């Protein structure tokens, strides 16, 4: 068996590193007449930087994984580990725009959009050597749609009316109605080894959930609960083995501790907080050792109004409230500038985002005017608007444990006060927040966030049929045109047609302001500089992880045969 051996080199401390850089700089100066000049490659100038296999990447993770069977996992840690062990049939490309093949080499969608035929690669093997076939997908499909399986991801697959295995490497799925998100739903959730699991109760297959046999880029090597999860490169991976030999997730719940570990070499990669990114990582010592990246995350934060509440039934009032909020100010204060104001529920810079919409500008004067039009005035001169003897006051709720949301709510409170609207901020523990307030529609306004899927379909959040308890249109937004648009757009596979529908959908949202869309935060990973081959893209940096490498001369962790 092979074991990891960490070279007994001390982490380079700030001062030593500076000294080294200085020395190199002096050398470079001394020889600058003969040298090529203008090259700041520094100490790495004559090192072979070509791709090499080996080394290990130590990544910090806030939480432990819980279950590595993708369809049973519920947390992001589990999904990120599982995504290294199981491959999807197809996946979004680096621009998060088009689908590209993985386990499926190609697929055909029938003219009417009702049938999709997948052709699987024939050279894929499970990590125990068994061949991967369409029977495995059939097993996965049957399992995820089985009512006794406790999965949260069955909905997309329930739309399938018929699943047919045509031959070992071809299968066909038939839908009753065309369903555009269908294609992207064929990800790693249904990829399970039939030969190991058939006939077992998947819910209680904890041995497999903790030691899965997959077919992806990495194989699970060991998992110490609450401490580390380590994976090794799958040398038989069908797309060519990953360069980095080992990935070790270290579970460190505190981001301060993660940061100290990063500095001492105990971690190679972590997600920085905005504060760490902007205040604690700008020293030369840090920059010499780590590359920082930033890209917009797939989520947004919003202020949602309960449209059943009389206060917010008038569109002019909602527009007035949005005009009163300075979104850039929130980005600057809460995210320290590391984010972007949001105006629609799509990520800026993506294909689906409607760039031509003008957002409601920060304009308190316009706010007051709109509120006056809606009949609100400060008749008793106490600084708070009133109408028919009732003051304009309400509560903004947010969940406990999310400091960013609390700060956002506080800033909004202050801005509302300036236009004569009295808002109280209340923080409530998550379960009570959802069960007692959101589900019962017993709230005025909430500060919350949604993560965005890569398919533009947002039927569940905005369609007027999705307003009953425990459903997700909890602000009770209802608009006939939006309903029609959402309906037609999810029935079409034509990108341009869908784009047109979603563009109009976004125009209506901006006009009606059922939410005030606030901001999209940035993900801020830091990665040790010895890792090469990282190509930032809209999808972030991890999408091509198997192409990351450490040049042989820079490798830190060596693998040697051991006991």
């Amino acid at each position, binding site marked *: 068996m092979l074991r990891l051996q*960490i070279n007994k080199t001390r982490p380079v401390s700030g001062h030593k590193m500076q000294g080294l850089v200085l020395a190199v700089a002096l050398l470079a100066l001394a020889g600058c007449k003969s040298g090529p000049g203008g090259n700041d490659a520094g100490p790495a100038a004559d090192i072979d930087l070509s791709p090499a296999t080996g080394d290990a990447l130590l990544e910090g993770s806030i939480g432990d994984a819980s279950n590595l069977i993708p369809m049973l996992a519920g947390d992001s840690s589990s999904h990120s580990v599982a995504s290294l062990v199981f491959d999807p049939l197809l996946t979004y490309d680096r621009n998060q725009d088009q689908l590209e093949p993985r386990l499926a080499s190609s697929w055909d969608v029938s003219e009417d959009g009702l049938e999709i035929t997948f052709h699987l690669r024939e050279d894929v093997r499970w990590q125990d050597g068994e061949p991967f076939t369409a029977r495995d997908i059939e097993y996965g499909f049957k399992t995820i749609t089985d009512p006794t399986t*406790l999965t*949260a991801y069955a909905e997309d697959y329930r739309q399938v009316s018929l699943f047919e295995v045509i031959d070992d490497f071809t299968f066909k799925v038939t839908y009753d109605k065309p369903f555009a998100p269908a294609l992207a739903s064929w990800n790693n959730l249904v990829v399970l080894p039939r030969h190991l699991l058939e006939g077992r109760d998947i819910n209680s297959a904890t041995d497999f959930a903790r030691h899965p046999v997959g077919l992806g880029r990495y194989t699970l090597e060991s998992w110490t609960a609450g401490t580390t999860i380590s994976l090794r490169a799958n040398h038989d991976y069908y797309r060519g083995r990953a360069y980095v030999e080992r990935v070790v997730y270290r579970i*460190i719940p505190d981001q301060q501790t993660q940061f100290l570990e990063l500095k001492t070499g105990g971690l190679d990669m972590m997600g920085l907080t905005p504060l760490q990114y902007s205040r604690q990582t700008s020293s030369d010592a840090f920059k010499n050792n780590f590359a920082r990246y930033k890209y917009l995350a797939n989520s947004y934060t919003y202020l949602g109004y309960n449209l059943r509440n009389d206060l917010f039934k008038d569109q002019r009032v909602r527009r007035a409230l949005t005009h009163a909020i300075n979104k850039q100010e929130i980005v600057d204060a809460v995210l320290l500038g590391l984010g972007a104001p949001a105006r629609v529920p799509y990520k800026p810079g993506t294909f689906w985002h409607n760039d031509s919409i003008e957002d409601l500008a920060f304009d308190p004067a316009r706010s007051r005017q709109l509120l006056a039009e809606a009949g609100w005035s400060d008749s008793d001169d106490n600084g708070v608007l009133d109408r028919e003897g009732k003051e304009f006051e309400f509560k903004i709720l947010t969940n406990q444990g999310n400091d960013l949301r609390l700060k956002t709510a506080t800033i909004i409170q202050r801005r509302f006060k300036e236009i004569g609207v009295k808002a109280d901020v209340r923080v409530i523990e998550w379960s009570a927040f959802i*069960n007692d307030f959101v589900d019962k529609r017993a709230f005025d306004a909430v500060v919350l966030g949604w993560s965005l899927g890569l398919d533009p379909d947002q039927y569940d959040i905005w369609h007027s049929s999705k307003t009953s308890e425990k459903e997700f249109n909890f602000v009770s937004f209802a608009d006939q045109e939006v309903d029609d648009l959402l309906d037609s757009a999810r029935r079409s596979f034509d990108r341009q047609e869908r784009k047109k529908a979603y563009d109009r959908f976004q125009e209506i949202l901006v006009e009606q302001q059922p939410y005030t869309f606030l901001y999209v935060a940035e993900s801020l990973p830091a990665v040790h500089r010895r890792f090469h081959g990282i190509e930032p893209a809209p999808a972030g940096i991890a999408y091509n992880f198997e192409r990351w490498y450490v040049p042989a001369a820079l490798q830190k962790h060596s693998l040697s045969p051991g006991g």
Partner: protein
Amino acid sequence: MIAYLSRRLLGLVPLLLGITLISFMVIHVAPGSPMDLLTDMNPDASPELRDRLAEHWGLDEPLPVQYAMWLKRVVVGDFGNSLSRDPRPVIDKVAEALPVTLVLNLMSLCLVMAAAIPIGVYSATHPYSRSDRVATVFVFLGFAMPTFWLALLCMMLFGVELAWLPVSGLQSLDYDSLGPWDKVLDRARHLVLPVSIAAITSLAGMSRYMRSSMLEVFRQDYVTTARAKGLSERVVVYRHALRNAMLPVITLLGLSVPGLIGGSVIFETIFAIPGMGRLFYNSVMGRDYTVVMGVLVIGAVLTLLGNLLADVSYAIADPRLRRR
């Protein structure tokens, strides 16, 4: 003695029942359910998934029935499976976390005693002297300082700046490939910071207790007698006074037994230690009823046994109590 013990043990049963009943009610009455984490605000999950989960976990029964079912299993030692995405038996999860917390807390308790008794005795024998005041200020500083802050400072100093000690965790990544001696050394290096920081925060209480207990004893007649007999100050302090002054401290020790298995969330989070504190906190947050109840019952049993142990040690240390 045996009669005394069995009487006390029998008395624990109704107490334990009451504790489980109240804990069970409180955690079930709290808003939310184990389904929430998976289904709340998750458009992927269908509403009927909640019902299927509830049925699977037996949460669709009325509360008294649920309690009866739970009790029936617990009596035979089965705490059930976790109601989370990691549905392993509760006992496995506790077995993973308990040794970590226990070792850590035992070591820090030993450290506390090793430091608190001498400090307390010294302060008591030199009351209101300069060194007494210095010791007092020092222990109270440790007491007043927020653990997470002190921990971060120490991690920065010893972990990052000086690079003497590892920052977090319980063992190095290459632990498995180390020799037996290196393994011990590696463990020890990882334990230095968490153990001493945990100790510093409870040093104040223990040393002050020791000090006042000693001062109390010094005023007793038998100490005056011992001094009058012409015994050396050393014998008076260590043989006559200290033994008696230890009595209240034994009570304190007994009371800290349940504390040994209850980890601190903040502490474990900072040091990335997978102990009982985090297990319990995460279970409460996820409304993982079976794990919460498992941890509580184990905690309650240990608390009650700890109290009993303290009483028994009392009885051993003080023969008058035995006859009652």
